[in-house]
């Protein structure tokens, strides 16, 4: 496949699909989730949730990779069409300014603007390093091995990735088939699975991680135009110097970006924190939903249900990337939701969370049944 087609396909999968699909959940989220970055993040996690929902049954039923690619493309295309309709309605009703709230910072001097320039330079260096520095993790024998075998043999999880011997479907790993996403991108672009994993995915996943940090900064610093770039610069530095052991979240994000565990540590957990910050803000006793937006049309809707929808999508993404990660998400969300519910005197958010955490409980039950299996 030529370079033009590769770029077009990457643009569709990492820009068009997430952005248009993200318009669906974000339309239920009031101001939360209505900037371009927030819409993209909603769509990003929705797309991974779709991959999980489509891939697991397909693998267990012994379908081919071609079948799965067609299925995922159909679902994402349908969601994108719905997103386009939402966009068209937004244009017609002239509500797009609310929808696409590009943050225009006022009273920002040149020195403050330079902070953004510094951040983008540092980010570009980090992305450049992910292309120029090879960090070979032996566990890729499993992750990339599965992805490549799926592409070359048009099967899923029926060969031992280490030796190539035929094997029965590995039920436990098939529940979290993130390598299949690598295989899907490899199949639609025609790029070798190792190149997709080691060179292409890190670029997109790391940029998405910084989008999440940006939204966290906007949330915790109340849209402060100066603190957001300072926070982002700090996050680049913290990630760059975070190799205080081989186990850290930062080490995984930078050196194993393409692995499911790295997506869990570097993207999903920070996104859960973003949702928790938003929930804690929006459920404060003294704070009405109306405080979130000046637009009278927007005041009518509460973004809280939308946040729980995104928490559900995030948990499904967690299921896609890491089976043991569901432990972590269940503990993190359970503790944070309990703290928010008690402190803000909003007990109803706890049963709401129980519903959204269904994927976590499902996976925990499977683990309990399997005994030791992490």
């Amino acid at each position, binding site marked *: 496949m030529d370079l033009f087609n590769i770029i077009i396909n990457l643009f569709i999968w990492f820009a068009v699909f997430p952005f248009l699909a993200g318009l669906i959940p974000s339309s239920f989220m009031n101001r939360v989730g209505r900037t371009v970055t927030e819409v993209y993040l909603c769509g990003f996690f929705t797309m991974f949730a779709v991959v999980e929902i489509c891939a697991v049954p397909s693998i267990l039923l012994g379908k081919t990779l071609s079948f799965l690619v067609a299925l995922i493309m159909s679902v994402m295309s349908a969601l994108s069409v719905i997103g386009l309709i939402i966009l068209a309605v937004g244009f017609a009703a002239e509500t797009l300014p609310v929808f696409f709230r590009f943050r225009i910072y006022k009273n920002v001097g040149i020195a403050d603007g330079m902070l953004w320039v510094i951040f983008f330079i540092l980010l570009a260096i980090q992305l450049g390093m992910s292309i120029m520095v090879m960090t070979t993790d032996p566990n890729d024998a499993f992750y990339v091995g599965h992805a490549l075998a799926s592409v070359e043999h048009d099967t899923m999880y029926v060969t031992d990735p280490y030796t*190539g011997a035929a094997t029965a479907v590995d039920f436990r790993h098939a529940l979290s088939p993130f390598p299949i996403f690598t295989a899907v991108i490899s199949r639609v672009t025609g790029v070798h699975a190792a190149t997709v994993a080691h060179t292409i995915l890190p670029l997109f996943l790391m940029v998405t991680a910084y989008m999440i940090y940006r939204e966290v900064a906007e949330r915790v610093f109340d849209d402060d135009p100066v603190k957001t770039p300072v926070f982002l610069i700090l996050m680049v530095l913290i990630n760059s110097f975070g190799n205080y052991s081989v186990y850290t979240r930062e080490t995984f994000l930078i050196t194993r970006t393409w692995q499911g565990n790295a997506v869990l540590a570097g993207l999903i957990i920070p996104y859960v924190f973003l949702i928790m910050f938003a929930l804690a803000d929006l459920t404060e006793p003294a704070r009405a939903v109306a405080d979130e937006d000046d637009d009278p049309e927007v005041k009518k809707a509460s973004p809280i249900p939308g946040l729980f929808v995104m928490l559900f999508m995030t948990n499904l993404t967690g299921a896609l990337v890491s089976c043991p990660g569901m432990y972590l998400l269940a503990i993190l969300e359970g503790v944070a939701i309990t703290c928010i519910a008690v402190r803000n005197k909003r007990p109803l958010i706890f049963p709401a969370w129980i519903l959204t955490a269904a994927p976590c409980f499902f996976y925990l039950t499977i683990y309990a049944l399997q005994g030791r299996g992490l």
Partner: protein
Amino acid sequence: MIEDFREIFRIYAQYTGSGIVMILFFAGLIYTAVSVKKRSIQTVLVITSSVLLAVIFCPPGFELYDRFGGADSYWRLWWIMPIGLGLGYVGCDLIKDHRIAGFALLLVVLLLGGEFVYTGEIEGLRSEAVNAGQLPEDTLATVDLLRAVSDEKEIHAAFPGELLPYVRQYDADIIMPYGYETVRKDYPEKNEFFDVMSDEMTDFERLAELCSETGTRYLFIPNEYRAKHPFGHYGFRKVSGTAGFTLYEYRLLGVKGGVKGDGSQ
């Protein structure tokens, strides 16, 4: 209970390295608890983190995790502590109007307490990427050589330990009698084929038997290894080689009885 507590601390020490970054994080939590008034920050960053800390250091919780998940992966629980986000938040709040001094101070602290991720320790290899797939060059050289000498779609070949993780990342049609799982620390079973391949005095007699049993046609053996017996006597021929490895072909695959030491069948 005491033993569990010791184990939790051991895992904490393993995760935190020098411990400076974690101390900074804890100090940051105290700073946030004392000086930040925003309610949601207090709830999520301070209270939730404190409860999570209590959960991680809770021995009954550790036992439960060990029973279902295995203590060897307990370090992953530290991922749910917002260490990076917390440090970023506190750093940002502290830097405020003294940005240059603040950044410089933070950089010094990170240099002392952390380690640059592009030079620090990792579990695999690190080098300059010389191909788009970011795979070691010797892997590509060996697999390309195999493809050049064989026209079979599926090639059955055995590799030395250092190439095991990478071969099937490059070509999924290479079938191996043992794979990366053999060299994993947590793999309980020994593999005789791998053991014989790893011996610096290569026993081609035994390799001939193992090749027959597993249907393996090609072997890559490090150039510095020496043959215990003349390999030709056991049905092998030297095909070619790369900078680090010699490629041998077992010519008697499927031949009943194989070749004995004197060269007769």
